[in-house]
């Protein structure tokens, strides 16, 4: 009867044999490589990770080392480009339309949606104009952003860079690297900066 006592233990041991993290990663990457058959290479390339994305995909909080965080910040800082005009503040009304637009770069039937320009996606995750209730909360509220911070050159540059590549400031934050990933142009980002800091903008109106 001794084997009866051991049988459950053996079953438990058998079940516990999950693949290690490296094997799971290899299997996962092979699965990604096969997930989009027949799609044009320009689209399947989107599913290939760049080095910061790889670092930022670790499972569970607190798994990223100091060195890795520093590497993400270094790569992200190096990615930031500025408008050819050098102007980091555009037109807040243009920025308002962009901030509330969630369109652009989505794929259906192997084709990228046709839009005049990509939206900046801000209101999907942030409150901006405090009177507009249709706003997400994945990111912090930005209502009063400019009235709290002013519109000095330092604030302007920080805001521009933060939108261009958020990971230069908070490595692996939830926020998309909108400029670095090519979703927004430098000029579009300058318009959004204006929407956030201009005293006339609804974001800052009392």
């Amino acid at each position, binding site marked *: 009867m001794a084997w009866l006592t051991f049988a459950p233990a053996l079953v438990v041991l*058998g*079940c516990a*044999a*999950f*693949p290690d*993290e490296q*094997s*799971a*990663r290899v*299997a*996962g990457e092979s*699965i*990604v490589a*096969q*997930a*989009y*058959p*027949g*799609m044009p290479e320009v*689209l*399947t390339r*989107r*599913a*290939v*990770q760049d080095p910061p*994305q790889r670092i*930022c*995909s*670790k*499972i569970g909080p607190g798994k990223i080392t100091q060195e890795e965080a520093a590497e993400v910040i270094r790569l992200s800082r190096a990615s930031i480009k500025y408008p050819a005009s050098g102007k980091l503040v555009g037109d807040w009304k243009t920025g308002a339309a962009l901030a509330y637009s*969630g369109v652009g*770069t*989505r*794929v*259906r*039937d*192997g084709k990228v949606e046709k839009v005049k320009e990509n939206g900046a*996606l801000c*209101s*999907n*995750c942030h409150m901006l104009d405090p009177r507009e*209730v*249709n*706003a*997400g*909360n*994945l990111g912090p509220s930005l209502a009063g952003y400019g009235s709290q911070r002013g519109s000095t050159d330092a604030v302007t540059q920080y805001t521009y860079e933060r939108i261009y590549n958020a990971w230069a400031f908070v490595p692996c934050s*939830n*926020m*998309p*690297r909108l400029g670095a*990933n*090519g*979703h927004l142009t430098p000029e579009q980002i300058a318009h959004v900066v204006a929407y956030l800091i201009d005293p006339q903008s609804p974001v800052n109106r009392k």
Partner: protein
Amino acid sequence: MRPDFKSSRHPRPRSLLRIRALRAVAQRARAATTVACAVACGAALAQDGKVDPLAVGRQLLAEDNPGELWVQRGEKLFHAKRGPRQVSLEQCDFGLGPGKLTGAFPRLPRYFPDTGKVQDLESRLLTCMVELQGYARADIVKGAFSTLDHDSDMEALASFVASRSNGMSMNVQLDHEKEREMYKAGEYLFHRRSGPTDFACVTCHGDEGKRIRLQELPNMTDRKQIQAVVSGWPAYRGTQSTVRTMQHRLYDCNWQMRLPDLDFASDMSIALTTYLNYSGNGAVIQAPGVRR
């Protein structure tokens, strides 16, 4: 291959089934407003004591779940002799033996020796429609999601098979090595960031009380919330006037993440579903559910 999706994003109700479904809901809602509101409003009280009007609507819809019509259609399709070989799906093996439906869905995804693969409900139905009934795989995949002009057999069949386990608990086992591989791959993929938005599943589904605009996001790292999700898929989706499967749910998340069209019955979808369903073990199946 992926389903033909032209103009299918928000199909308006057009088939008789859908019109009947909506009419039934409307009638029931009118007739029962007084009684139902007393019940529903009570259940729909938010934490701050205010009535959540969306929750009232959801509850009214759930009481007269239009998804039942997909179950009925699925049952007819399941038993009908169809396809090039003119046979029914009664010999389809969902893991408990040919034709055994009760208790099969809560064990999915699982490893199937005949295909050598871990399969979910939809990919297993696909196998049976091809191997038993003789359909071309590409044709089934092309029609797997309902559109304005086409009612998906897959969505009806999945509703029927899942509903046969209503009241039972999700119970994915991971006994087979390949199931454990799929689970771990799914966990990896859930956290894998990519694409122009740098999103992983966990970006939006990893914290409490989060919304995209006004749409609430379940926290898929919390067992109770995972269970609430897995108990109700396939689901009748009010915004789309049809039942959608988990395959479609993942396809749509993929779309929002700006990734290319996710292949139907891909290992990507099955790995994520294995991770999800196993994490939601214990959830009481009530399929089809009712969703936005």
